[in-house]
């Protein structure tokens, strides 16, 4: 089974702080990591590959430094990786990003002389939290998609996916090729080994620009190709003007609460 894992390098959210004046993320000096949900997508992909053979390629769109994130995926089981990077791709929203990724996937299939049976993404990235790119890639490629996967089993050229929802999970089957987005798994992604780290370090990561993706239409890429307009970003103000009832019997307090809620037309 040939697998493509779409990965995003994100700021380590454990380390991130919000500038109290501008309400934007302070990205300076914050270490970058592989989007945690993508590490689960990669792990489930590596396990499928180990069970059934084939190749696992990890791709990422981003600046030069995202090569480091690709290398860390190579150290835990990916066979190859591509960075998709160009000035013309900068400023892409989810629609443009998913378009570029889907065109890149086709170009990589061409280059590698293979067809991907499965395209895996994390359910969302921890910086933007949109959860749109995976499903949009499926639409661009015209493939079936299953989101929020907890596990993927391969059987007779089809896959069975455990799809997580609040009260449990669904079992859904689909033919291949397909796109699946992955949630936090019941098991942790494997650690690299010293040898795999050293081997990954030495690997060259090819960079794909629009020149390497002949079919791409730049009108759908970057800022130009992005219909999303961000009007404003802000941190919600936390107000502390609630009413506190103290020193009352519970029954009296309950009556008082009901009265206040009626006055505020909440009931």
């Amino acid at each position, binding site marked *: 089974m040939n697998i493509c894992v779409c990965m995003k390098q994100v700021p380590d959210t454990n380390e991130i702080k919000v500038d109290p004046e501008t309400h934007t993320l302070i990205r300076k000096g914050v270490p970058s990591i592989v989007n945690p949900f993508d590490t689960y997508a990669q792990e489930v992909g590596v396990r499928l590959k180990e069970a059934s053979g084939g190749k696992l390629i990890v791709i990422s769109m981003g600046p030069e430094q995202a090569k480091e994130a690709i290398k860390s995926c190579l150290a835990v089981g990916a066979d190859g990786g591509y960075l998709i990077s160009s000035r013309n791709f900068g400023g892409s929203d989810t629609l443009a990003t998913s378009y570029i990724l889907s065109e890149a996937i086709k170009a990589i299939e061409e280059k590698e002389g293979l067809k991907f049976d499965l395209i895996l993404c994390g359910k969302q990235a921890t910086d933007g939290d949109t959860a749109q790119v995976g499903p949009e890639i499926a639409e661009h490629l015209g493939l079936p998609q299953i989101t929020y996967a907890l596990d993927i089993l391969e059987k007779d050229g089809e896959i069975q996916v455990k799809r997580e929802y609040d009260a449990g999970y669904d079992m859904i089957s689909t033919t291949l090729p397909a796109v699946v987005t992955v949630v936090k798994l019941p098991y*942790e992604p494997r*650690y*690299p*080994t*010293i*040898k795999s*780290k*050293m081997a990954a*370090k030495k690997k060259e990561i090819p960079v794909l620009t629009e020149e390497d993706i002949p079919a791409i239409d730049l009108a759908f890429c970057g800022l130009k190709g992005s219909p999303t307009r961000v009007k404003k970003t802000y941190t919600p103000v936390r107000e502390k003007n609630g009413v506190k009832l103290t020193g009352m019997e519970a029954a009296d307090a309950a009556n008082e609460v009901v009265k206040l809620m009626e006055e505020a037309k909440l009931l």
Partner: protein
Amino acid sequence: MDFKQDEIHQDILDMVHEFAVNDVKPLAATIDQTEEFPMDNVKQMAEMGLLGIPFPEEYGGSGMDTLAYIQTVEELSKYCATTGVIVSAHTSLCCTPIYQFGSEEQKKKYLPKLCSGEWLGAFALTEPNAGTDASGQQTVAVDAGDHWVLNGSKIFITNAGAADVFFVLAMTDKSQGTKGISAFIVEKGYQGFSIGKHEDKMGIRASSTCELVFEDCIVPKENLVGELGKGFKYAMMTLDGGRVGIAAQALGIAEGAIEETVKYVQERKQFGRRLSQFQNTQFELAQMKANTEAAKLLVYQAACAKDDHENFSHKAAMAKLVASRNASDVTRRCLQLYGGYGYTKDYPIERMMRDAKITEIYEGTSEVQMMVISGWMGVK
């Protein structure tokens, strides 16, 4: 002085850090209480290649150097000194002497399984009547024609209860003194070999420190390491390397204690201010940090000197002397900053203080380190 800190060292450190925080730290308090050897984590470290860091790939090692190994022990010890010493004793005291003094057959037989973690290693020199005076070995090995017969006992052996392979020193010719001591590789399944008393220790409580008992223990002829009568020399050279490992463990304990204390003093309030706002706290932690960084330079210097094949015994002794005293000093002062909470098991600092003490004792006490240093200085 070149520390040879490459990007790959940082990569390995990042990898070890992630493992230490996710898997080692959460277990540290529990295994301190239960004394349960952390076998799952040892297996995980084996998979990551952390049990054979400084050995060539042809023997199953990770092909890195002493510095990478030392930094691994340091990083693990920040969160759990027990886990740090398990790696240190296995690597420095069992794999290293086999690699350094063993025959090609011995290296091929033992190193791949030790480096892959299939087997765990230990080192046995100390006896009830031969501690700092290690020359007073009473365990004897008698040549019985086609095999050796060992009789005697060893005490305070780190990893003993979990180890598969032991690097054992025994007297082969009493009349020769230290030149009558030889080294043997003993496997745990050998006839006449058994594990004795398990020590109930003050610190590093899950490192499985036990007695070894040899009762007419049959050791194959080919398990003599190197030359007959060279065992004491091999043991002393092995301990030089081991001391860098223990110095790294001590360094990690101090760094871990400072890290925890910095967090604590930023949260704890007294007299309407955070503890971190008191000048005593600031000066105490500043001094501890500076002393710890100074110790770190000595530890890394010793590691790099070993990698450069320089004479490093005095450097190892200085690193261990300074780093271990610093670990005891730092953990004691950090506990004082915690006050009463620090004396409870709700916080890790009392464990760190207990763990620190052993670094001043094992693999040569501080006094032995000073003997080595003064001897090297010509003060004798």
